């Protein structure tokens, strides 16, 4: 960066000010890189800890590798609660994903094609409700409702509550995708004799596949990291998902078991990172800053 040529001097100033200009530009540039390095370190250090600590025999809050080992992984896989919780998370994430994608596809298709008075109002109200349903404010009524429906302490109950919270936004996003498929595609299929489900299967679903992928991945990631709903609705420790399980890696005295927490944390992160990479390469959209088609 030192070799970078200084910008041509502005017309007018005397030759003496030239060197001062170069020095000032250099200092500004160094300051900039120092700042960037600090910001990067601030965000990278926890990541470094997450990656390094699981391979450390006695991890502390300092990131580093003094005594590399794989024992932590062996130990954690010996722990039945860990295996169960990861499996529970997978069941919850996939179950919710299936419910959300199927229901949202049907609902979005209907909302996109059927002319209803006040259709958009319905959608916005639904969207508003979604934040209420998964929000902590509704937890007591949801608990009571789940209790009355005998859904307490079942994965089904958690799946339904989570799906209910995610559906409005999913419908909202998918409807946009459905709206952008030309009506003539379906009309042409109708003239050839296709029924509504045939049209949905053969034409609409393949065309909105990127939208379905968005919904699916977003649902899995959201459910994978959701804590409050399963924490409240599940009492049986064999049913707790990974996000809740982490909470139990404390000794009776309240000190964190860093060996378990760091190793489990790494395992817990991997699926989300993998999914991000897959979606990124296949569809080229990003999780931040909105969706790109």
């Amino acid at each position, binding site marked *: 960066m030192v070799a970078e040529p200084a910008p041509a001097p502005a017309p007018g100033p005397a030759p003496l000010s030239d060197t001062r200009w170069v020095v000032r530009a250099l200092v500004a540039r160094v300051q900039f890189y120092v700042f960037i390095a600090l910001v990067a370190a601030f965000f990278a250090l926890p990541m470094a800890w997450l990656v390094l600590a699981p391979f450390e025999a006695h991890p502390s809050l300092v990131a580093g590798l003094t005594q590399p080992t794989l024992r932590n992984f062996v130990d954690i896989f010996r722990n039945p609660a860990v295996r169960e919780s990861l499996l529970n998370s997978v069941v919850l994430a996939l179950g919710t994903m299936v419910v959300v994608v199927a229901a949202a596809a049907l609902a979005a298709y209907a909302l996109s094609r059927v002319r209803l008075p006040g259709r958009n109002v319905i959608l916005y109200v639904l969207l508003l409700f979604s934040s209420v349903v998964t929000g902590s404010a509704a937890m007591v009524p949801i608990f009571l409702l789940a209790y009355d429906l005998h859904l307490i302490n079942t994965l089904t109950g958690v799946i339904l509550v989570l799906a209910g919270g995610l559906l409005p936004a999913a419908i909202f996003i998918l409807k946009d995708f459905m709206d952008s498929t*030309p009506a*003539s*595609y379906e*009309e*042409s*299929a*109708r*003239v*050839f*004799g*296709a*029924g509504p489900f*045939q049209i949905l299967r*053969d*034409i609409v679903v*393949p*065309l909105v596949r990127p939208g379905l992928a968005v919904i699916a991945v977003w649902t899995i990631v959201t459910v994978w990291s959701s804590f409050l709903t399963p924490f409240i609705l599940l009492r049986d420790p064999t049913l707790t998902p990974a996000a809740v399980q982490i909470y139990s890696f404390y000794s009776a005295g309240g000190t964190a078991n860093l060996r378990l927490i760091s190793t489990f944390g790494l395992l817990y992160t991997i699926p989300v990172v993998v999914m991000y990479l897959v979606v990124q390469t296949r569809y080229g959209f990003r999780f931040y800053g909105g969706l790109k088609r």
Partner: protein
Amino acid sequence: MADITISGLTKVYSNGVRALRDVDLTIADGEFFALLGPSGCGKTTLLRTLAGLEVANAGRITIAARDVTRLPPGARKVAMVFQDYALYPHMDVADNIAYPLKIQRMARGARRQRAAETGAHLGLGGLMDRRPAQLSGGQQQRVALARAVASHPNVFLFDEPLSNLDARLRMEARTFLKRLHADLRITTVYVTHDQSEALALADRMAVMDGGVIRQVGSPVEVFQRPANLFVASFIGSTPMNLVDAVVEGGRVRVGRADIAVPPSATGLVHEGEPVVLGFRPEYTELRDQPTEGGFPAHVAIVEHLGIGFLIDLEHEGGLLQVVVADEDCPTVGTDGFVVPNASRALLYRKDSGELIATPTSTLGQAAPVAAGDVDTVG
């Protein structure tokens, strides 16, 4: 046999627009029938109602003697080609063509086989594995046609299928359509706003305006004897000259000049009746000397048409247009005499705008022409 009978068809959209008003129409088996009209005239609504994509508020549609008015689109045995072709971007050409067969539950191997045959027949031989996005506009249009052909319909419905092509391709595709129809002899209803397409392709055509059919007839009839002032001013690449006139002394007087009553109107007008005289710029001569039956006029604008020139002249009764041969092109600013070909001129009633002629000779509405008779037309 797949003739189409439409009677009393009325369509009112939920926003109150009356797109079709009591339309009656008969289309013969194997006929190439064009629906022509300005945008918003109801031609596309009529086609969509035939397809079953719109439900009529009143009236009856029968296809091949079967009442289909209340049948869903898939049960009518029709195939529709859309303006944007509606090819499915996620399927290759063969799957696109075979999609109607998939709906008919034909096995995948058999239907791809038939798609390949149909495609080859329409000149799509080497393109079966391509996606629609990899095809040119003309090829996409043929795929859409092939898909319609492969479904073995009783009736083809075309909704402005050529309007997305550029001018050169459009001519080619037009000839292709004509040949395809000659090959298959499937009843075809063709919607267009381009009169040259209708005139070139159709065995018979209907001119629509405001949800009403204004004239039905062969392209020659419609072109040469428009049934009313609307059709007269709508049909023709250069619109017909229409000037106010009066019947006087057994002749048609326009300003200071007069011409003989056209043969079509002989005996049907009475002395002193106000009429509108219509004559096509193509059936009109421009002389530089005063002539019997010539309207004096002043050359205002000269437009080059490629072959010949279109001359705009100022006349006391309004603007007149004449098409002249290259060598007869006058200079702007000179005076000339517009001489309509009296045998091809037409008279319209001033009040109703209807053509003055014996009705049987003009209004093809009465009797549809049999398919065999119209081969020579166009």
